[in-house]
């Protein structure tokens, strides 16, 4: 490539505290009616003061450890001023001069190429509310449920050099935050949002002018937006034109970045230390406790746990563990800790069977994991034959009303010898030629008879028992 792309990523991670950053009000707005998770503090009422939620500090510390750095013992909150209807106080409480995390790194792997991307800083701040503009109406709507939600903004060094690396960085951040239990990382609900800064330069010692594409909420969008910006900026530079430093948005439908509407104003946010919040001073004891919590649950320990549950090869482990879409599955497996044989079977389906049924793993998200484990356990306990179990897996994704327990009950393997013997006798009686062949020593015909018995039993008979009984009946 003629130009060297330089990419930096800012990521807002919503921390999974029970309550907001500065108010004792519920924090999970995903299924809440507008403006139901608010108090005088979220509304910025006269006389309302912030009161820092210690749980957010703990989670930020765990995030710091996930980024391989010890959090700062001294940090401070500042006020960032601007007027907007979803910002009730007229300022956002953020951290400018003394963020809780300074430094850190994220290790990524793109097609076997390992790389360590530096983290500049990560700071705590409160989220704003949500503004929506109903079309054709002369008003806008504001929902303050999200106002005051704790965010950790993680800022990378400009050390990413391709769209694939950008995607890998975003995915790795996701995994680090998810496995450390710092965030719900629900991308659909904006729990994690990415801003990508892209610039091109033909001179490796010098950075070009950058564009910033804001509010990307999928890994694919991160990858595509970077790809698009590299292409767009290359074309401009090829024509001898300049790249304008600007904020852009991502048009998902058109798969392109577009300049954000409205003129770019040079904002003066008038940052100054928030006089309502004393500096945060973390002592060794607090940090040691946060570290101990982190050590119990993080990317590496969880990977070790999954490996021990399932006896997987490293590459199979990567397939399940490093894929954001199967993370919940991996965690559920770890959580439920099924017998090794069950886990292996289920993981085998996940890697080899399920991709043939569904186009991507996103359908796994809902409550399908429990059903899969139930099917795996039924197979392991010989309640289902391999065929029946696989049929169950397929139906699980094809039928909305699939009920694993019911399926297992209805398709339970016939292991009662008397029952099977009855079917075997019937099959022998109606397939006398084949029976004679077997008796003559043509053992190939046993397979045919087994097949007939299985068919007659609707696949429920245990094939090993069937074979044994046929041989016994025909005395071979």
């Amino acid at each position, binding site marked *: 490539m003629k130009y060297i792309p330089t990419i930096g990523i800012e990521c807002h991670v919503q921390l999974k505290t029970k309550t907001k950053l500065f108010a004792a009000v519920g924090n999970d707005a995903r299924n809440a009616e507008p403006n139901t998770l608010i108090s*005088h503090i979220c*509304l*910025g*009422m*006269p*006389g*309302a*003061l*912030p*009161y*820092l939620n210690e749980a957010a500090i703990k989670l930020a510390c765990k995030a710091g450890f996930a980024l391989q750095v010890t959090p700062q013992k001294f940090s401070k909150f500042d*006020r960032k*001023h601007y*007027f907007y*209807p979803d910002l*009730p*106080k*007229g*300022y956002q409480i953020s951290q400018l001069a003394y963020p809780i995390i300074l430094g850190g790194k994220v290790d990524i792997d793109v097609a076997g190429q390992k790389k360590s991307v530096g983290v500049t800083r990560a700071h705590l701040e409160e989220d704003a509310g949500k503004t929506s503009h109903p079309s054709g109406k002369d008003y*806008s709507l*504001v929902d303050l449920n999200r106002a005051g939600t704790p965010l950790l903004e993680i800022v990378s060094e400009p050390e990413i050099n391709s769209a694939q690396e950008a995607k890998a960085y975003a995915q790795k951040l996701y995994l680090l935050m998810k496995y450390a239990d710092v965030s719900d990382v629900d991308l659909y609900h904006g729990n994690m949002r990415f801003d990508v800064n892209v610039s091109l330069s033909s001179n490796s010692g010098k950075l070009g002018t950058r564009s910033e594409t804001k509010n990307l909420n999928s890994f694919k969008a991160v990858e595509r937006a970077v790809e698009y910006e590299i292409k767009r900026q290359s074309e401009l530079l090829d024509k001898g034109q300049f790249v304008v430093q600007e904020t852009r948005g991502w048009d998902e439908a058109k798969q392109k970045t577009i300049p954000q509407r409205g003129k770019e104003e040079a904002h*003066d946010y*008038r*940052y*100054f230390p*928030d*006089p*309502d*919040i*004393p500096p945060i001073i973390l002592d060794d004891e607090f940090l040691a406790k946060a570290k101990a919590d982190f050590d119990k649950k993080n990317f590496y320990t969880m990977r070790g746990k999954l490996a021990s549950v399932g006896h997987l090869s490293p590459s199979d482990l990567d397939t399940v563990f490093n894929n954001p879409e199967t993370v919940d599955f991996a965690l559920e497996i770890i959580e439920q800790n099924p017998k090794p044989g069950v886990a292996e079977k289920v993981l085998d389906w996940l890697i080899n069977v399920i991709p043939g049924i569904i186009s991507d793993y996103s359908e796994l998200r809902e409550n399908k994991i429990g059903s899969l484990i139930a099917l795996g356990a039924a197979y392991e306990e010989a309640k289902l034959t391999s065929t029946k179990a696989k049929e169950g897996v397929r139906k699980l994704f094809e039928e909305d009303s699939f009920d694993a327990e019911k399926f297992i009950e209805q398709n339970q393997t016939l292991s009662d010898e008397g029952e099977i013997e009855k079917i075997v006798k019937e099959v022998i009686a109606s397939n006398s030629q084949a029976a004679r062949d077997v008796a003559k020593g043509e053992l190939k015909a046993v397979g045919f008879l087994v097949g007939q018995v299985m068919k007659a039993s609707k696949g429920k008979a245990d094939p090993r028992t069937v074979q044994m009984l046929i041989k016994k009946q025909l005395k071979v």
Partner: protein
Amino acid sequence: MTKKSETGSTKSETKSKSEIRNWAPINEIANDVRAGKITALSNVEKSIGLIEKHSEFDAIISVLDEPAKKRAKQIDARVNNGEKAGRLAGVPFIAKDNFLVFGGETTAASNILKGFEAPYQATVINKLEAEGAICIAKANLDAFAHGSSTENSDFFVTKNPIDKTRVPGGSSGGSAAATALSLAPFSLGTDTGGSIRQPASFCNVVGFKPTYGLVSRSGVVAMASSLDVIGPITKSTEDAALIMDVIAGKDKLDMTMIDRDILAYTKFNNNLTGVKIGVEKEYMDEKVDKEVKQIISVAIEKLKNAGALVAEVSLPSSKLGLPAYYIISLAELSSNLSRYDGQRFGYSYPDAKNLDESYMLSRDIGFGDEAKRRIMIGTYVLSSGYYDAYYKKAQIVRTKIINESREAFSKFDFLIGPTTPTAAFKIGEKSQDPLQMYLSDLLTVSANLDGGPAISIPAGFAGSLPVGLHIMAPQGEDRKLLGIANGFEELSK
């Protein structure tokens, strides 16, 4: 809720001392209510009567007669049933109208908050109510506590109870006048640069500014967060100590709080013998009116005669206190006033064509001149390019002042001087000159900058006008300060 009328200017009358003192000490009132000798309801009715009688002074913005009567009846029922009625059982009080109180409007004397009804209540009010006190009315102030005379109230000017042609001081002018007029046994004020002590001095009452962080700021309309404190305005130091005992203490709604004195504030020591007092040289120089200095000198002599060890002390940085104060406080208040944007509560310009116009016209019409002046200066000193020259430098000065006062307090138990450079000035005398008005805070701001407690207590009269003695103590020594103030008060009896 009834809104005060601005009429009712009857014959000018100067309050005689007996007329002013028409409430017993707060402790006695509560005792009598608990003992069933008087009822909470009769106290409330008496207070309402006095508010009506003295309406010409315009101390009050609104009266909470219905909710107050209802609460009084509840307290009387508790007494009748032999239940606990509280340390302030049936004691009416008046809150500056920047305290959020249920049952009426909270306006901060500003047009932008006119009609605003608090959806939650100030922690201080909750604490007082829990001990049986009853908020009977809301007092006038300079809008958003911006001022030293109540002339910046968006509604009306309060008159000084001692001389109706003069200001009561500010910004807690309505509260100080209310206590001076005995409209209720005590009132609450807020003090960012002297707003409790200066009006107390002008109105001849006791104004106490506690250590920063001792009393919760939650539910009090903020002026400048790092300087704002809440305190009582009373007739005596004993009353002040009792109120402090009820309102001090940590609160889960204010992060800037400190632990309170484990001992009761009422159990102060008023012995003056051997107490080391520094007289601040800079506070007794040519900036201070001669007559005021004369009264303070007499007060100093009294303290000496009572056994106090008095010496002069110099705090050279104190002259930088006022400019530093006006940079820090204006920076903070410009930020704190951002929330008054016409979108969620308070005044909203009804015919705005778009969002920008709604912001601009709501704030333009809703804020008075002084608030606008302060927002502009505060915004300026925080702007990029000016932050280092103003805000940062002012913070450095603040640290210097804190260090100097620590140094002084290593040699002295208390620092004293006059509360204000002059006695109460005429209405209109300074209102056209903001800088002159800002100078009335000259002697009080350093206690806000260093965070320590300070008190103004009546020291005598310059002609017919009262003069307050200002006493400062190190942070956390609130009880000791109330003790020496009480000792001085005893000398004056």
